[in-house]
Protein backbone atom coordinates (compact mmCIF):
# COMPACT_ATOMS: atom_id res chain seq x y z
CA UNK A 1 0.00 0.00 0.00
CA UNK A 2 1.32 3.41 -0.93
CA UNK A 3 1.89 5.95 1.83
CA UNK A 4 -0.19 8.54 -0.02
CA UNK A 5 -3.06 6.04 -0.25
CA UNK A 6 -2.62 5.18 3.41
CA UNK A 7 -3.03 8.84 4.25
CA UNK A 8 -6.09 9.30 2.03
CA UNK A 9 -7.67 6.14 3.37
CA UNK A 10 -7.15 7.26 6.94
CA UNK A 11 -8.49 10.71 6.16
CA UNK A 12 -11.75 9.09 5.13
CA UNK A 13 -11.79 7.21 8.41
CA UNK A 14 -11.03 10.28 10.47
CA UNK A 15 -13.64 12.20 8.55
CA UNK A 16 -16.29 9.64 9.39
CA UNK A 17 -15.62 9.48 13.10
CA UNK A 18 -15.36 13.23 13.31
CA UNK A 19 -16.34 13.75 16.96
CA UNK A 20 -14.06 11.04 18.23
CA UNK A 21 -11.13 12.18 16.13
CA UNK A 22 -11.66 15.78 17.14
CA UNK A 23 -11.63 14.84 20.80
CA UNK A 24 -8.33 13.06 20.38
CA UNK A 25 -6.91 15.87 18.33
CA UNK A 26 -7.84 18.38 21.00
CA UNK A 27 -6.35 16.27 23.75
CA UNK A 28 -3.02 16.07 21.94
CA UNK A 29 -3.23 19.73 21.00
CA UNK A 30 -3.71 20.72 24.63
CA UNK A 31 -0.70 18.68 25.66
CA UNK A 32 1.56 20.20 23.03
CA UNK A 33 0.06 23.62 23.64
CA UNK A 34 0.77 23.37 27.36
CA UNK A 35 4.36 22.28 26.87
CA UNK A 36 5.08 25.03 24.39
CA UNK A 37 3.27 27.83 26.14
CA UNK A 38 4.60 27.06 29.60
CA UNK A 39 8.19 26.53 28.54
CA UNK A 40 7.86 29.59 26.33
CA UNK A 41 6.84 31.72 29.29
CA UNK A 42 9.37 30.09 31.58
CA UNK A 43 12.17 30.54 29.10
CA UNK A 44 11.11 34.13 28.44
CA UNK A 45 11.19 34.88 32.14
CA UNK A 46 14.58 33.24 32.47
CA UNK A 47 16.10 35.06 29.54
CA UNK A 48 14.63 38.30 30.84
CA UNK A 49 16.11 37.94 34.30
CA UNK A 50 19.44 36.69 33.01
CA UNK A 51 19.55 39.50 30.50
CA UNK A 52 19.05 41.97 33.27
CA UNK A 53 21.94 40.58 35.24
CA UNK A 54 24.07 40.47 32.17
CA UNK A 55 23.87 44.22 32.07
CA UNK A 56 26.21 44.12 35.00
CA UNK A 57 29.63 43.57 33.60
CA UNK A 58 31.30 40.29 34.45
CA UNK A 59 33.85 42.15 36.52
CA UNK A 60 31.34 43.90 38.73
CA UNK A 61 30.86 42.74 42.31
CA UNK A 62 27.97 43.79 44.49
CA UNK A 63 28.59 44.35 48.18
CA UNK A 64 25.53 43.87 50.32
CA UNK A 65 25.38 44.65 54.03
CA UNK A 66 24.72 41.55 56.13
CA UNK A 67 26.44 38.20 56.07
CA UNK A 68 25.30 35.14 54.33
CA UNK A 69 27.09 32.33 52.57
CA UNK A 70 28.28 33.81 49.32
CA UNK A 71 28.90 30.66 47.42
CA UNK A 72 25.64 29.83 45.73
CA UNK A 73 22.26 30.47 47.23
CA UNK A 74 20.28 33.63 47.08
CA UNK A 75 21.86 36.78 48.47
CA UNK A 76 20.17 38.46 51.42
CA UNK A 77 17.92 40.95 49.72
CA UNK A 78 16.85 42.49 52.97
CA UNK A 79 19.95 43.31 54.89
CA UNK A 80 19.71 42.43 58.57
CA UNK A 81 22.88 43.95 59.78
CA UNK A 82 23.77 46.04 62.73
CA UNK A 83 26.60 47.82 60.97
CA UNK A 84 25.83 49.76 57.84
CA UNK A 85 27.92 50.22 54.76
CA UNK A 86 29.03 53.79 54.60
CA UNK A 87 30.42 56.20 52.06
CA UNK A 88 33.72 55.89 53.93
CA UNK A 89 33.71 52.19 53.12
CA UNK A 90 33.07 53.01 49.47
CA UNK A 91 35.93 55.48 49.40
CA UNK A 92 38.25 53.00 51.07
CA UNK A 93 37.33 50.38 48.48
CA UNK A 94 38.17 52.76 45.71
CA UNK A 95 41.69 53.02 47.08
CA UNK A 96 42.29 49.28 46.64
CA UNK A 97 44.57 48.81 43.60
CA UNK A 98 42.45 46.07 42.01
CA UNK A 99 39.30 48.19 42.02
CA UNK A 100 38.80 50.57 39.12
CA UNK A 101 35.45 52.07 40.03
CA UNK A 102 32.91 52.18 42.84
CA UNK A 103 29.24 53.09 42.71
CA UNK A 104 27.18 53.37 45.89
CA UNK A 105 23.42 53.03 45.91
CA UNK A 106 20.67 54.34 48.16
CA UNK A 107 17.24 53.73 46.68
CA UNK A 108 13.74 54.62 47.78
CA UNK A 109 10.32 55.77 46.71
CA UNK A 110 9.91 59.54 46.94
CA UNK A 111 7.33 62.08 46.06
CA UNK A 112 8.52 63.98 42.97
CA UNK A 113 6.84 67.18 41.93
CA UNK A 114 7.13 69.82 39.29
CA UNK A 115 4.75 72.75 39.38
CA UNK A 116 1.34 71.33 40.19
CA UNK A 117 2.21 67.85 38.98
CA UNK A 118 3.50 65.30 41.41
CA UNK A 119 3.89 61.56 41.68
CA UNK A 120 5.77 58.83 43.46
CA UNK A 121 8.95 57.77 41.73
CA UNK A 122 11.87 55.51 42.35
CA UNK A 123 14.76 57.65 43.54
CA UNK A 124 18.32 56.40 43.45
CA UNK A 125 21.24 58.08 45.15
CA UNK A 126 24.44 57.14 43.40
CA UNK A 127 27.36 58.61 41.44
CA UNK A 128 28.60 59.11 37.91
CA UNK A 129 30.22 55.66 37.74
CA UNK A 130 26.85 53.98 38.15
CA UNK A 131 25.77 55.04 34.66
CA UNK A 132 28.65 53.25 32.99
CA UNK A 133 28.34 50.17 35.17
CA UNK A 134 24.65 49.72 34.51
CA UNK A 135 24.97 50.75 30.89
CA UNK A 136 22.48 53.54 31.25
CA UNK A 137 22.42 55.79 28.22
CA UNK A 138 21.16 59.32 27.96
CA UNK A 139 18.62 60.68 25.53
CA UNK A 140 19.70 64.21 26.27
CA UNK A 141 21.78 66.25 28.74
CA UNK A 142 24.57 64.79 30.85
CA UNK A 143 25.08 62.25 33.60
CA UNK A 144 25.67 63.11 37.25
CA UNK A 145 28.75 65.31 37.76
CA UNK A 146 32.08 63.93 38.83
CA UNK A 147 32.16 65.03 42.46
CA UNK A 148 33.45 63.39 45.64
CA UNK A 149 30.92 60.90 46.92
CA UNK A 150 30.29 62.81 50.11
CA UNK A 151 29.46 66.01 48.29
CA UNK A 152 25.85 66.93 47.59
CA UNK A 153 24.70 68.56 44.38
CA UNK A 154 21.18 69.69 43.55
CA UNK A 155 21.08 67.98 40.16
CA UNK A 156 19.25 64.96 38.87
CA UNK A 157 18.86 62.68 35.84
CA UNK A 158 15.35 61.42 35.18
CA UNK A 159 13.77 58.51 33.29
CA UNK A 160 11.90 59.02 30.05
CA UNK A 161 8.48 58.18 31.42
CA UNK A 162 8.90 60.57 34.32
CA UNK A 163 9.98 63.24 31.89
CA UNK A 164 6.83 62.77 29.81
CA UNK A 165 4.53 62.79 32.78
CA UNK A 166 5.99 65.79 34.55
CA UNK A 167 7.06 67.93 31.62
CA UNK A 168 5.10 66.74 28.64
CA UNK A 169 6.71 67.98 25.47
CA UNK A 170 8.28 71.06 27.05
CA UNK A 171 12.04 71.47 27.32
CA UNK A 172 13.26 69.78 30.45
CA UNK A 173 16.97 70.44 30.81
CA UNK A 174 17.58 73.11 33.43
CA UNK A 175 14.11 72.78 34.89
CA UNK A 176 13.67 72.30 38.62
CA UNK A 177 11.80 69.55 40.34
CA UNK A 178 11.22 68.73 43.96
CA UNK A 179 12.19 65.44 45.54
CA UNK A 180 10.77 65.30 49.02
CA UNK A 181 11.67 68.73 50.42
CA UNK A 182 14.72 69.34 48.26
CA UNK A 183 14.89 71.03 44.86
CA UNK A 184 16.96 69.48 42.06
CA UNK A 185 17.80 70.77 38.61
CA UNK A 186 17.30 68.32 35.76
CA UNK A 187 20.56 67.86 33.87
CA UNK A 188 19.83 64.72 31.87
CA UNK A 189 17.14 62.35 30.62
CA UNK A 190 17.68 58.61 30.31
CA UNK A 191 17.08 56.81 27.06
CA UNK A 192 13.91 54.80 26.89
CA UNK A 193 14.68 51.38 28.26
CA UNK A 194 12.47 48.88 29.99
CA UNK A 195 13.09 47.21 33.26
CA UNK A 196 16.49 46.83 34.79
CA UNK A 197 16.84 44.27 37.53
CA UNK A 198 13.18 44.63 38.21
CA UNK A 199 13.34 48.40 38.39
CA UNK A 200 11.62 50.55 35.85
CA UNK A 201 14.43 52.91 34.95
CA UNK A 202 12.02 54.93 32.84
CA UNK A 203 10.28 55.88 36.03
CA UNK A 204 13.40 56.61 38.08
CA UNK A 205 15.28 59.68 39.30
CA UNK A 206 19.02 59.57 39.88
CA UNK A 207 20.65 62.01 42.27
CA UNK A 208 24.12 62.25 43.87
CA UNK A 209 24.47 59.80 46.74
CA UNK A 210 25.22 62.46 49.33
CA UNK A 211 22.03 64.29 48.37
CA UNK A 212 20.12 61.04 48.71
CA UNK A 213 21.46 60.67 52.24
CA UNK A 214 19.84 63.98 53.05
CA UNK A 215 16.61 63.26 51.21
CA UNK A 216 16.18 59.84 52.81
CA UNK A 217 17.78 60.93 56.05
CA UNK A 218 20.06 57.93 56.23
CA UNK A 219 23.78 57.23 56.40
CA UNK A 220 23.84 53.60 55.33
CA UNK A 221 24.27 52.42 51.78
CA UNK A 222 21.97 49.81 50.33
CA UNK A 223 24.59 48.42 47.95
CA UNK A 224 28.08 49.16 46.76
CA UNK A 225 28.93 48.15 43.20
CA UNK A 226 32.64 47.71 42.62
CA UNK A 227 34.32 47.18 39.31
CA UNK A 228 37.50 45.09 39.25
CA UNK A 229 40.38 45.96 36.96
CA UNK A 230 40.67 42.37 35.91
CA UNK A 231 38.94 39.09 36.56
CA UNK A 232 42.22 37.22 36.80
CA UNK A 233 42.56 37.27 40.53
CA UNK A 234 38.92 37.23 41.40
CA UNK A 235 39.38 35.18 44.54
CA UNK A 236 42.23 37.31 45.86
CA UNK A 237 40.25 40.42 45.07
CA UNK A 238 37.27 39.09 46.95
CA UNK A 239 39.39 38.28 49.94
CA UNK A 240 41.02 41.73 49.90
CA UNK A 241 37.62 43.42 49.73
CA UNK A 242 36.21 41.32 52.53
CA UNK A 243 39.33 41.90 54.63
CA UNK A 244 39.14 45.61 54.08
CA UNK A 245 35.51 45.84 55.16
CA UNK A 246 36.19 43.53 58.11
CA UNK A 247 39.00 45.76 59.22
CA UNK A 248 36.84 48.83 58.94
CA UNK A 249 33.94 47.13 60.75
CA UNK A 250 35.86 46.27 63.89
CA UNK A 251 36.92 42.85 62.79
CA UNK A 252 33.51 41.65 61.90
CA UNK A 253 32.84 40.15 58.52
CA UNK A 254 29.37 41.52 57.99
CA UNK A 255 28.99 41.96 54.24
CA UNK A 256 28.14 39.66 51.42
CA UNK A 257 29.85 39.73 48.04
CA UNK A 258 27.81 38.86 45.04
CA UNK A 259 29.37 38.14 41.69
CA UNK A 260 27.48 38.08 38.48
CA UNK A 261 28.29 34.41 38.13
CA UNK A 262 26.85 33.40 41.48
CA UNK A 263 23.76 35.46 40.78
CA UNK A 264 23.34 34.05 37.34
CA UNK A 265 23.76 30.47 38.40
CA UNK A 266 21.45 30.90 41.38
CA UNK A 267 18.76 32.38 39.20
CA UNK A 268 19.39 30.03 36.32
CA UNK A 269 18.93 27.05 38.64
CA UNK A 270 15.68 28.36 40.01
CA UNK A 271 14.39 29.28 36.60
CA UNK A 272 15.45 26.01 35.03
CA UNK A 273 13.65 24.16 37.77
CA UNK A 274 10.60 26.27 37.04
CA UNK A 275 10.75 25.56 33.32
CA UNK A 276 11.19 21.87 33.97
CA UNK A 277 8.33 21.67 36.40
CA UNK A 278 5.94 23.34 33.99
CA UNK A 279 7.18 20.93 31.34
CA UNK A 280 6.38 18.16 33.80
CA UNK A 281 2.85 19.42 34.25
CA UNK A 282 2.50 19.54 30.50
CA UNK A 283 3.85 16.02 30.21
CA UNK A 284 1.04 14.80 32.44
CA UNK A 285 -1.46 16.25 30.01
CA UNK A 286 0.32 14.29 27.27
CA UNK A 287 -0.15 11.15 29.30
CA UNK A 288 -3.86 11.85 29.52
CA UNK A 289 -3.91 12.38 25.77
CA UNK A 290 -2.11 9.06 25.36
CA UNK A 291 -4.67 7.14 27.37
CA UNK A 292 -7.37 8.83 25.33
CA UNK A 293 -5.58 7.78 22.14
CA UNK A 294 -5.61 4.20 23.31
CA UNK A 295 -9.31 4.29 24.07
CA UNK A 296 -10.19 5.91 20.79
CA UNK A 297 -8.11 3.38 18.91
CA UNK A 298 -9.64 0.48 20.83
CA UNK A 299 -13.11 1.73 20.00
CA UNK A 300 -12.10 2.17 16.39
CA UNK A 301 -10.74 -1.36 16.14
CA UNK A 302 -13.87 -2.69 17.77
CA UNK A 303 -16.25 -0.82 15.51
CA UNK A 304 -14.33 -1.58 12.39
CA UNK A 305 -13.89 -5.29 12.98
CA UNK A 306 -15.81 -6.25 9.83
CA UNK A 307 -13.87 -3.73 7.83
CA UNK A 308 -10.64 -5.24 9.09
CA UNK A 309 -11.98 -8.64 8.07
CA UNK A 310 -12.75 -7.32 4.61
CA UNK A 311 -9.31 -5.73 4.23
CA UNK A 312 -7.75 -9.04 5.18
CA UNK A 313 -10.01 -10.91 2.77
CA UNK A 314 -8.84 -8.52 0.08
CA UNK A 315 -5.33 -9.70 0.77
CA UNK A 316 -4.03 -7.05 3.13
CA UNK A 317 -1.27 -8.53 5.29
CA UNK A 318 -1.42 -8.19 9.05
CA UNK A 319 1.42 -5.74 9.22
CA UNK A 320 -0.35 -3.36 6.84
CA UNK A 321 -3.48 -3.56 8.96
CA UNK A 322 -1.34 -2.63 11.95
CA UNK A 323 0.23 0.16 9.95
CA UNK A 324 -3.18 1.58 9.07
CA UNK A 325 -4.16 1.90 12.70
CA UNK A 326 -0.79 3.24 13.83
CA UNK A 327 -0.86 5.72 11.00
CA UNK A 328 -4.34 6.87 11.89
CA UNK A 329 -3.20 7.65 15.43
CA UNK A 330 -0.04 9.29 14.12
CA UNK A 331 -1.95 11.49 11.73
CA UNK A 332 -4.28 12.71 14.42
CA UNK A 333 -1.39 13.25 16.81
CA UNK A 334 0.50 15.23 14.20
CA UNK A 335 -2.52 17.38 13.43
CA UNK A 336 -3.14 17.92 17.13
CA UNK A 337 0.50 18.70 17.78
CA UNK A 338 0.64 21.25 14.99
CA UNK A 339 -2.58 22.85 16.19
CA UNK A 340 -1.23 23.06 19.72
CA UNK A 341 2.09 24.39 18.52
CA UNK A 342 0.44 27.04 16.39
CA UNK A 343 -1.88 28.15 19.15
CA UNK A 344 0.91 28.36 21.72
CA UNK A 345 3.08 30.40 19.37
CA UNK A 346 0.17 32.71 18.66
CA UNK A 347 -0.41 33.29 22.35
CA UNK A 348 3.30 33.85 22.96
CA UNK A 349 3.30 36.32 20.09
CA UNK A 350 0.43 38.20 21.71
CA UNK A 351 2.19 38.07 25.08
CA UNK A 352 5.27 39.47 23.39
CA UNK A 353 3.20 42.37 22.08
CA UNK A 354 1.83 43.02 25.54
CA UNK A 355 5.21 42.73 27.31
CA UNK A 356 7.80 43.69 24.74
CA UNK A 357 10.70 43.57 27.19
CA UNK A 358 10.29 39.90 28.05
CA UNK A 359 11.70 37.62 25.34
CA UNK A 360 8.89 35.03 25.31
CA UNK A 361 9.69 32.10 23.10
CA UNK A 362 9.50 28.35 23.27
CA UNK A 363 12.98 26.87 23.24
CA UNK A 364 13.59 24.72 20.19
CA UNK A 365 14.06 21.60 22.29
CA UNK A 366 10.57 22.06 23.71
CA UNK A 367 9.02 22.59 20.29
CA UNK A 368 10.60 19.53 18.74
CA UNK A 369 10.32 17.61 21.97
CA UNK A 370 6.61 18.23 22.35
CA UNK A 371 5.82 17.16 18.80
CA UNK A 372 8.01 14.09 19.10
CA UNK A 373 6.45 13.23 22.45
CA UNK A 374 2.98 13.64 20.96
CA UNK A 375 3.82 11.31 18.09
CA UNK A 376 5.49 8.80 20.38
CA UNK A 377 2.53 8.93 22.74
CA UNK A 378 0.19 8.20 19.86
CA UNK A 379 2.41 5.35 18.65
CA UNK A 380 2.85 3.76 22.05
CA UNK A 381 -0.77 3.98 23.05
CA UNK A 382 -2.17 2.84 19.72
CA UNK A 383 0.25 -0.09 19.52
CA UNK A 384 -1.99 -2.42 21.52
CA UNK A 385 -5.18 -1.69 19.58
CA UNK A 386 -3.31 -1.88 16.28
CA UNK A 387 -1.85 -5.27 17.17
CA UNK A 388 -5.28 -6.40 18.20
CA UNK A 389 -6.58 -5.46 14.78
CA UNK A 390 -3.66 -7.11 13.04
CA UNK A 391 -4.11 -10.35 14.95
CA UNK A 392 -7.77 -10.85 14.01
CA UNK A 393 -8.48 -13.84 11.82
CA UNK A 394 -10.32 -12.72 8.70
CA UNK A 395 -13.15 -15.20 9.04
CA UNK A 396 -14.00 -14.14 12.60
CA UNK A 397 -13.67 -10.46 11.80
CA UNK A 398 -15.97 -10.75 8.80
CA UNK A 399 -18.63 -12.48 10.87
CA UNK A 400 -18.57 -9.84 13.58
CA UNK A 401 -22.17 -8.95 14.34
CA UNK A 402 -21.57 -5.62 16.03
CA UNK A 403 -21.48 -3.26 13.13
CA UNK A 404 -21.62 -2.92 9.38
Amino acid at each position, binding site marked *: *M*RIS*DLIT*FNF*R*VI*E*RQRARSLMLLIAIAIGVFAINLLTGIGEGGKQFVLGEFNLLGKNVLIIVPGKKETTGGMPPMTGETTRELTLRDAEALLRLPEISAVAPLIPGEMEISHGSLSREAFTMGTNRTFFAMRQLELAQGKVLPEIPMDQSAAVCVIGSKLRRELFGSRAVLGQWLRIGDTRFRVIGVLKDRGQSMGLDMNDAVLIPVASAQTVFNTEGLFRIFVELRSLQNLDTSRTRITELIKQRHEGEEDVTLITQDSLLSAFANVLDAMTLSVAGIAAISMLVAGVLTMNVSLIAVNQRT*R*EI*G*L*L*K*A*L*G*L*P*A*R*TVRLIFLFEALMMALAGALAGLLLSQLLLFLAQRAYPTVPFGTPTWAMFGSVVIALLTALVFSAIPASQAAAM*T*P*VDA*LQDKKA*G
Partner: protein
Amino acid sequence: MIELRQLCRDFLVGDQMVHALDHIDLDIAAGEYLSVMGPSGSGKSTLLNILGLLDKPSAGEYLLAGTATGSLREEQRAKLRRQHIGFVFQSYHLIPRLTARENIELPLVLAGEAPKTRRQKVDQLLERLDLSERAEHIPNQLSGGQRQRVAIGRAIITEPDLLLADEPTGNLDSRSGLEVITLLEELNAGGITLLVVTHDEDIGTRARRRLHMVDGKINRDWLSESKNDGGGS
Protein backbone atom coordinates in the same frame (compact mmCIF):
# COMPACT_ATOMS: atom_id res chain seq x y z
CA MET B 1 -6.97 -25.25 -9.77
CA ILE B 2 -8.13 -26.55 -6.40
CA GLU B 3 -7.39 -29.82 -4.67
CA LEU B 4 -8.71 -30.77 -1.25
CA ARG B 5 -7.40 -33.95 0.35
CA GLN B 6 -9.02 -35.37 3.48
CA LEU B 7 -9.74 -31.88 4.64
CA CYS B 8 -11.24 -31.37 8.12
CA ARG B 9 -12.30 -28.33 10.05
CA ASP B 10 -13.31 -28.83 13.67
CA PHE B 11 -14.78 -26.27 16.01
CA LEU B 12 -14.97 -26.55 19.74
CA VAL B 13 -18.45 -25.46 20.73
CA GLY B 14 -18.69 -25.45 24.50
CA ASP B 15 -16.94 -28.74 25.32
CA GLN B 16 -18.19 -30.49 22.23
CA MET B 17 -16.18 -30.94 19.06
CA VAL B 18 -18.15 -30.11 15.94
CA HIS B 19 -16.86 -31.39 12.63
CA ALA B 20 -17.84 -28.60 10.26
CA LEU B 21 -15.90 -30.26 7.48
CA ASP B 22 -15.37 -33.96 7.72
CA HIS B 23 -12.63 -35.44 5.51
CA ILE B 24 -13.50 -33.65 2.31
CA ASP B 25 -11.90 -34.60 -1.00
CA LEU B 26 -12.59 -32.22 -3.83
CA ASP B 27 -11.04 -31.23 -7.15
CA ILE B 28 -12.06 -28.12 -9.00
CA ALA B 29 -10.67 -27.42 -12.44
CA ALA B 30 -9.96 -23.95 -13.74
CA GLY B 31 -13.02 -22.31 -15.34
CA GLU B 32 -15.58 -24.51 -13.59
CA TYR B 33 -18.93 -23.22 -12.36
CA LEU B 34 -20.03 -24.88 -9.12
CA SER B 35 -22.83 -24.32 -6.71
CA VAL B 36 -22.74 -25.55 -3.13
CA MET B 37 -26.08 -26.23 -1.50
CA GLY B 38 -27.21 -27.85 1.68
CA PRO B 39 -28.97 -27.07 4.97
CA SER B 40 -27.68 -24.54 7.48
CA GLY B 41 -24.74 -25.87 9.42
CA SER B 42 -23.82 -28.36 6.74
CA GLY B 43 -20.42 -26.74 6.31
CA LYS B 44 -20.98 -24.73 3.10
CA SER B 45 -19.63 -21.48 4.43
CA THR B 46 -16.77 -23.15 6.26
CA LEU B 47 -15.75 -24.76 2.98
CA LEU B 48 -15.89 -21.40 1.26
CA ASN B 49 -13.81 -19.76 3.99
CA ILE B 50 -11.19 -22.45 3.73
CA LEU B 51 -11.09 -22.21 -0.04
CA GLY B 52 -10.76 -18.45 0.31
CA LEU B 53 -7.87 -18.83 2.78
CA LEU B 54 -9.90 -16.90 5.33
CA ASP B 55 -9.80 -19.91 7.62
CA LYS B 56 -7.34 -22.75 8.18
CA PRO B 57 -8.22 -26.45 8.08
CA SER B 58 -7.72 -28.50 11.22
CA ALA B 59 -6.36 -31.38 9.16
CA GLY B 60 -5.88 -32.39 5.56
CA GLU B 61 -4.43 -30.58 2.63
CA TYR B 62 -5.50 -27.72 0.42
CA LEU B 63 -3.63 -26.99 -2.80
CA LEU B 64 -4.47 -23.75 -4.55
CA ALA B 65 -3.01 -23.29 -8.04
CA GLY B 66 -0.42 -25.94 -7.20
CA THR B 67 0.62 -24.36 -3.91
CA ALA B 68 0.20 -26.35 -0.71
CA THR B 69 -1.35 -23.79 1.65
CA GLY B 70 -0.99 -25.68 4.92
CA SER B 71 2.46 -24.44 5.87
CA LEU B 72 2.12 -20.88 4.59
CA ARG B 73 2.61 -17.94 6.88
CA GLU B 74 -0.16 -15.38 7.25
CA GLU B 75 1.73 -12.99 5.00
CA GLN B 76 1.93 -15.54 2.19
CA ARG B 77 -1.72 -16.49 2.60
CA ALA B 78 -2.66 -12.83 2.26
CA LYS B 79 -0.61 -12.61 -0.91
CA LEU B 80 -2.31 -15.72 -2.39
CA ARG B 81 -5.71 -14.23 -1.57
CA ARG B 82 -4.73 -11.01 -3.24
CA GLN B 83 -3.50 -12.75 -6.38
CA HIS B 84 -6.01 -15.51 -6.91
CA ILE B 85 -9.24 -14.98 -5.06
CA GLY B 86 -12.20 -12.62 -5.26
CA PHE B 87 -14.97 -12.64 -2.66
CA VAL B 88 -18.62 -11.75 -2.98
CA PHE B 89 -20.54 -11.71 0.29
CA GLN B 90 -24.24 -11.86 1.05
CA SER B 91 -24.12 -8.54 2.93
CA TYR B 92 -21.79 -6.93 0.36
CA HIS B 93 -19.22 -5.76 2.97
CA LEU B 94 -18.78 -2.44 1.27
CA ILE B 95 -17.02 0.29 3.23
CA PRO B 96 -19.83 2.75 3.93
CA ARG B 97 -17.83 5.97 3.70
CA LEU B 98 -16.23 5.14 0.37
CA THR B 99 -17.96 5.76 -2.95
CA ALA B 100 -18.76 2.96 -5.39
CA ARG B 101 -15.63 3.88 -7.31
CA GLU B 102 -13.45 3.85 -4.21
CA ASN B 103 -14.86 0.55 -3.00
CA ILE B 104 -14.04 -1.07 -6.32
CA GLU B 105 -10.63 0.56 -6.33
CA LEU B 106 -9.79 -0.60 -2.80
CA PRO B 107 -7.98 -3.88 -3.65
CA LEU B 108 -5.78 -2.01 -6.12
CA VAL B 109 -5.06 0.63 -3.46
CA LEU B 110 -4.14 -2.07 -0.97
CA ALA B 111 -1.96 -3.75 -3.59
CA GLY B 112 -0.11 -0.48 -4.09
CA GLU B 113 -0.99 0.12 -7.74
CA ALA B 114 -0.36 3.53 -9.25
CA PRO B 115 -3.33 5.92 -9.19
CA LYS B 116 -3.38 6.28 -12.96
CA THR B 117 -3.68 2.59 -13.77
CA ARG B 118 -6.19 2.26 -10.97
CA ARG B 119 -8.39 4.88 -12.49
CA GLN B 120 -8.30 3.29 -15.93
CA LYS B 121 -9.16 -0.16 -14.63
CA VAL B 122 -11.96 1.10 -12.42
CA ASP B 123 -13.47 3.20 -15.21
CA GLN B 124 -13.56 0.23 -17.54
CA LEU B 125 -15.11 -1.96 -14.91
CA LEU B 126 -17.72 0.61 -13.91
CA GLU B 127 -18.76 0.76 -17.55
CA ARG B 128 -18.99 -2.99 -17.78
CA LEU B 129 -21.02 -3.25 -14.56
CA ASP B 130 -23.33 -0.50 -15.80
CA LEU B 131 -22.41 1.60 -12.74
CA SER B 132 -20.76 4.59 -14.39
CA GLU B 133 -23.63 6.84 -13.39
CA ARG B 134 -23.46 5.74 -9.77
CA ALA B 135 -19.67 5.83 -9.43
CA GLU B 136 -19.57 8.70 -6.96
CA HIS B 137 -22.40 7.44 -4.76
CA ILE B 138 -21.77 5.88 -1.40
CA PRO B 139 -23.31 2.46 -0.65
CA ASN B 140 -26.24 3.97 1.27
CA GLN B 141 -27.34 5.73 -1.90
CA LEU B 142 -27.34 2.53 -3.96
CA SER B 143 -29.94 -0.22 -4.35
CA GLY B 144 -29.16 -3.74 -3.16
CA GLY B 145 -28.48 -4.95 -6.68
CA GLN B 146 -26.19 -2.03 -7.35
CA ARG B 147 -24.32 -2.64 -4.09
CA GLN B 148 -23.76 -6.26 -4.99
CA ARG B 149 -22.53 -5.22 -8.43
CA VAL B 150 -20.07 -2.86 -6.74
CA ALA B 151 -18.96 -5.74 -4.50
CA ILE B 152 -18.49 -7.96 -7.57
CA GLY B 153 -16.51 -5.16 -9.19
CA ARG B 154 -14.28 -5.05 -6.14
CA ALA B 155 -13.88 -8.84 -6.27
CA ILE B 156 -12.78 -8.96 -9.92
CA ILE B 157 -10.79 -5.72 -10.25
CA THR B 158 -7.60 -7.64 -9.49
CA GLU B 159 -8.51 -10.24 -12.14
CA PRO B 160 -8.51 -13.25 -9.83
CA ASP B 161 -8.95 -16.76 -11.22
CA LEU B 162 -11.26 -17.90 -8.45
CA LEU B 163 -14.46 -16.11 -7.49
CA LEU B 164 -16.08 -17.22 -4.24
CA ALA B 165 -19.66 -16.04 -3.72
CA ASP B 166 -21.37 -16.64 -0.39
CA GLU B 167 -25.13 -16.29 -0.87
CA PRO B 168 -24.62 -13.48 -3.40
CA THR B 169 -28.36 -13.14 -4.00
CA GLY B 170 -29.44 -13.74 -0.41
CA ASN B 171 -30.32 -10.11 0.32
CA LEU B 172 -31.77 -9.32 -3.11
CA ASP B 173 -35.21 -9.49 -4.68
CA SER B 174 -35.54 -12.06 -7.43
CA ARG B 175 -35.02 -9.62 -10.29
CA SER B 176 -31.82 -8.09 -8.81
CA GLY B 177 -30.76 -11.58 -7.81
CA LEU B 178 -31.11 -12.74 -11.37
CA GLU B 179 -29.10 -9.76 -12.61
CA VAL B 180 -26.32 -10.54 -10.17
CA ILE B 181 -26.13 -14.25 -10.91
CA THR B 182 -26.19 -13.52 -14.63
CA LEU B 183 -23.28 -11.16 -14.15
CA LEU B 184 -21.36 -13.82 -12.25
CA GLU B 185 -22.10 -16.35 -15.00
CA GLU B 186 -20.82 -13.94 -17.61
CA LEU B 187 -17.60 -13.66 -15.66
CA ASN B 188 -17.39 -17.45 -15.51
CA ALA B 189 -17.93 -17.57 -19.27
CA GLY B 190 -14.94 -15.25 -19.48
CA GLY B 191 -12.81 -17.95 -17.84
CA ILE B 192 -12.97 -17.27 -14.10
CA THR B 193 -13.63 -20.22 -11.80
CA LEU B 194 -16.91 -19.57 -9.99
CA LEU B 195 -18.14 -21.13 -6.78
CA VAL B 196 -21.52 -20.04 -5.44
CA VAL B 197 -22.77 -21.03 -2.02
CA THR B 198 -26.55 -20.69 -1.86
CA HIS B 199 -29.77 -21.75 -0.22
CA ASP B 200 -31.74 -20.88 -3.30
CA GLU B 201 -32.64 -23.86 -5.52
CA ASP B 202 -33.28 -21.58 -8.50
CA ILE B 203 -29.79 -20.15 -8.22
CA GLY B 204 -28.05 -23.36 -7.26
CA THR B 205 -29.48 -25.37 -10.14
CA ARG B 206 -28.11 -22.93 -12.69
CA ALA B 207 -24.61 -24.23 -12.09
CA ARG B 208 -23.32 -27.04 -14.26
CA ARG B 209 -21.65 -28.76 -11.35
CA ARG B 210 -23.50 -28.96 -8.07
CA LEU B 211 -22.31 -30.00 -4.65
CA HIS B 212 -24.72 -30.91 -1.90
CA MET B 213 -23.44 -30.94 1.65
CA VAL B 214 -24.79 -32.49 4.80
CA ASP B 215 -23.05 -32.62 8.19
CA GLY B 216 -19.68 -31.54 6.88
CA LYS B 217 -19.60 -34.05 4.06
CA ILE B 218 -20.27 -33.69 0.36
CA ASN B 219 -23.04 -36.18 -0.14
CA ARG B 220 -23.71 -35.37 -3.79
CA ASP B 221 -21.43 -33.97 -6.49
CA TRP B 222 -22.94 -34.07 -9.95
CA LEU B 223 -22.95 -32.41 -13.36
CA SER B 224 -26.38 -31.18 -14.38
CA GLU B 225 -26.27 -32.03 -18.08
CA SER B 226 -25.20 -35.62 -17.79
CA LYS B 227 -27.26 -36.00 -14.58
CA ASN B 228 -24.71 -38.53 -13.44
CA ASP B 229 -24.20 -38.94 -9.74
CA GLY B 230 -20.60 -38.12 -8.97
CA GLY B 231 -20.94 -39.61 -5.54
CA GLY B 232 -18.87 -37.25 -3.36
CA SER B 233 -16.55 -38.59 -0.75
